[in-house]
């Protein structure tokens, strides 16, 4: 029951998101607007009810399974992009390398004080 009640909450916020997107013609998806509305609601009421926590934990645990059907398509669109595979692979591999390097550098630069404090060291597994 807790799970179902939480699920209904999530659906409710997605519907609210849909209404907001349609009404203001925002360039975001319905679910994305629902996420933001739920976050605002949680921050305002400062109380996370148990059913929402249960349902969200259950759904987030299944994210990998839910995105899998979309991934299957990769094996079927190869022809569509046959001429661009070099560009795609280079963009993904080189682009990811550069962005990882940039993020590490930026974070290191902006939080230097926190970096060396001993309390943040945790035993390595």
């Amino acid at each position: 029951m807790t799970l179902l009640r939480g699920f209904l909450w999530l659906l409710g916020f997605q519907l609210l998101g849909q209404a907001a997107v349609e009404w203001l013609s925002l360039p975001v998806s319905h679910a994305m607007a629902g996420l933001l509305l739920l976050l605002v609601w949680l921050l305002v009421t400062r109380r996370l009810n148990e059913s929402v926590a249960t349902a969200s934990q259950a759904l987030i645990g299944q994210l990998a399974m839910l995105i899998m059907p979309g991934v299957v398509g990769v094996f079927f669109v190869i022809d569509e992009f046959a001429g661009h595979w070099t560009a795609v692979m280079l963009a993904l591999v080189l682009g990811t390398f550069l962005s990882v390097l940039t993020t590490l550098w930026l974070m290191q630069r902006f939080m230097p004080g926190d970096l060396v404090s001993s309390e943040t060291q945790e035993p390595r597994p």
Partner: protein
Amino acid sequence: MSGWQASIPNGPILAIALTLAAYLGGVRLFERLGRPSWCPAVLIGALLIATGLWLLGIPYRDYQRDIVWLTLLLGPATVALAVPLYQQRQSIFALWKPILCCLPLAAALAACYAVAIAWLLGAPPAVLASLAPKSVTAPLAIGIQEQIGGSLSLMLGGLLITGVMATLFVSWLARLLGIRDPRLIGFTLGVNGHAIGTVRAFELGPTAGAFASLGMSLTGVFTALFLPLVWRLFGA
């Protein structure tokens, strides 16, 4: 289609059963292989589905139409991401300054590098649009794709490759640069490698895991809000 294939049931139930079986099989195989970071369970599962479709003689289009019954759950699952964000509000508020300085730049560059490289190599707009959300967690990326266009499958494939590459590069570069702070490594994994990076970060420890989910959620929200706007501005 003839012979034994004709008597095989089809429709949404078969599509869902095949997907669940492939997922469970993928996870089992993943564990058996010793949880390799270069081959996530999702990829194994997707390969199993593709094989299953081929064996059963089901056209991909039919599968795509039937599986909507299951993937509809991506909507509420996306809304659910508000909960971990809310639960981590304290760490977000505590580190708001470095996060606020780094995140927009890091998230924007993650998209820009890939789009720029592909553009220089002469890729068409549909490919560029598919690559732009590459560091965003899948449910949000699907929302972005609905807004800016491009191929859903290419985008999800790009997401997958990005996640795996980010995991490899973060471990490698962190060692090279002598970075050991779990918060920084976790955050970088989440920002660049979305869910795949986050799973990896939880293997490194709870602090890295928490910061990875933070990086993943913030990158996702930031990109989902701004990428469609920027895309529209440049009229791509």
